[in-house]
C-alpha cells in the first residue's frame, strides 16, 4: 500500500501546530516593534563579568536615553542581572502581558531570578523520564515568553544577557529576527580568548553583527591606595579585536566593591557606555 507524504498532501495542516508556532513568532515580533534596538551581550565562558557589564551598560544607557532601557536575563539557569540591578518582584500579570520589574535607573528587568525561590535551581514539572529531551524546549519556550509576553513597552534599548557559550546564539536568531548586534565580553586570559572566539564565530554564522569587545577585569585597581596591576596573563581583548576586525570598546579593571548599577560615573565604565552608544547609533 502506498500513500502520499506530508508535502504531497495539499491543504492546511489541520493539527494547527505550525500555525500556532507562527503565531508565537509573530507575537514576539509585535512586542519588539516598540523597541528601538535589541542587543545581545555574550561571552565564551562564565565568570567573565558579562552580567556586570550588562547591568552597567543598562544603567549608563538609561541616563542617556529618554525612551527607556530593558534587560532580559536569558541565562535562565544562572540568573544574576536582576540582583545586580536591585530589581525585585512580584511580577504583575495583566490582560495583555506581564509587567517587568524595575531596577536602578528605571531599567526594566525580567529574569528567572525573580521567579525562583532563593538558592533553588531551575526545575520543571514532571514527568522526570527523559527530562533532558524536553528541558531544552521548555527553556526555549520561557525565553520566547520573556520576549513576547512581557510588557516591555517602548524602549530605546533592550539588552539580552545571554548564558555563556555559543548555545544561546542560535536560539536567539530564531526568535529575534532584527537583532542590532552583539557585544562580546572577555577577560584577558588566553583560555577566555579561545572560548570567546568560538562564540563569536557562532554569532557570525548566525548572521549577527559583532558590535565590539569589552575586556573585563583587565587588571585590578584599588580604590583606596591606588595600587594597580594585572589579574590575568594575556591580551584577549586586543587579540580578538584584531582577529575579527571589530573594535575593542573598553578595558575595564576590577575594582573591589564596585557596583555596576550604582550609577557612579567611574571612568572606564563611562567610557564603555560612550563607546557602546556610539556603535549602536
Amino acid at each position, binding site marked *: 500500500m502506498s500513500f502520499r507524504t506530508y508535502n504531497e*498532501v495539499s491543504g492546511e*495542516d489541520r*493539527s494547527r501546530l505550525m500555525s500556532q508556532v507562527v503565531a508565537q513568532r509573530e507575537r514576539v515580533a509585535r512586542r519588539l516593534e516598540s523597541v528601538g534596538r535589541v542587543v545581545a551581550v555574550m561571552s565564551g565562558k562564565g565568570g567573565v563579568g558579562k552580567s556586570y557589564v550588562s547591568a552597567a551598560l543598562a544603567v549608563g544607557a538609561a541616563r542617556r536615553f529618554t525612551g527607556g532601557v530593558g534587560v532580559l536575563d536569558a541565562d535562565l539557569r544562572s540568573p544574576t542581572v536582576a540582583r545586580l540591578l536591585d530589581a525585585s518582584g512580584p511580577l504583575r500579570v495583566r490582560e495583555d502581558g506581564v509587567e517587568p520589574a524595575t531596577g536602578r535607573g528605571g531599567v526594566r528587568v525580567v529574569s528567572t531570578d525573580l521567579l525562583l525561590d532563593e538558592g533553588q535551581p531551575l526545575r520543571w514539572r514532571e514527568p522526570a523520564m527523559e527530562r533532558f529531551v524536553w528541558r531544552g524546549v521548555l527553556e526555549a519556550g520561557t525565553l520566547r515568553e520573556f520576549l513576547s*509576553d512581557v510588557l516591555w513597552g517602548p524602549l530605546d534599548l533592550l539588552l539580552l544577557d545571554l548564558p555563556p557559550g555559543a548555545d544561546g546564539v542560535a536560539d536567539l536568531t530564531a526568535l529575534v529576527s532584527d537583532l542590532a548586534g552583539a557585544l562580546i565580553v572577555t577577560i584577558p586570559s588566553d583560555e577566555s580568548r579561545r572560548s570567546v572566539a568560538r562564540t563569536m564565530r557562532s554569532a557570525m554564522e548566525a548572521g549577527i553583527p559583532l558590535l565590539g569587545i569589552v575586556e573585563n577585569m583587565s587588571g585590578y585597581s584599588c580604590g583606596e591606595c591606588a595600587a594597580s596591576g594585572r589579574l590575568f596573563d594575556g591580551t584577549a581583548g586586543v587579540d580578538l579585536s584584531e582577529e575579527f576586525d571589530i573594535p575593542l570598546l573598553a578595558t575595564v579593571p576590577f575594582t573591589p566593591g564596585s557596583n555596576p548599577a550604582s550609577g557612579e560615573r567611574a571612568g572606564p565604565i563611562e567610557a564603555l557606555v560612550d563607546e557602546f552608544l556610539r556603535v549602536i547609533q
Partner: protein
Amino acid sequence: MKFLCVDCDEQMTFYERKEPGDGTFAAGFVCPTCGRKVALLANPMESRLVGALGVKIGGRTLDAQPMEATRSSMVGRDDAFVDETAARPGRGPVRWSPGGVERLSKVPNFVRGMVKRIYNEWASEHGITEITPEVMDKARTDLGLEGM
C-alpha cells in the same frame, strides 16, 4: 502534522482532544469522506514535548495566557506573580462551589491565578454560572489543563 486516510487519499480532520490527567494525550481525527476515525495516543514524554512548545494539537480553544507555558511548567516561588486579570467583561458572573474552591487550592500558587482565570473564562463561554469539580473535569478535558 497531517493525518491521511489512505483509502480515500484525503487529509483527516481534527475533532477531539483528550488529556485524562495521567500525563498522556490523545487526539482524534476523522476522514471527511468515509468517516473513518483514528486516534493519536501519546505517552507522557511525547505529550510533554508537544506541550513544551506551547501549542495544542487541533488548535486552541482559548488564547494563551501571559507566560502560560512558563507559569504552568516551571517550579517557581509562590509569590512570583500577582494576577491582576479578571474574566472578560460582558460575560455572565461565575461563582465557585466549595468543592471547586478546594480543588483549586491544590493548584500550585505559582500558577493558581492563571488557572482560575482560565476556568472562569471557559465557564462564561459555556454559560455555566457555578464551577464545581465536575465542571473543572469537563473544562480540563476540553482545554488540556493537565494536573489542574
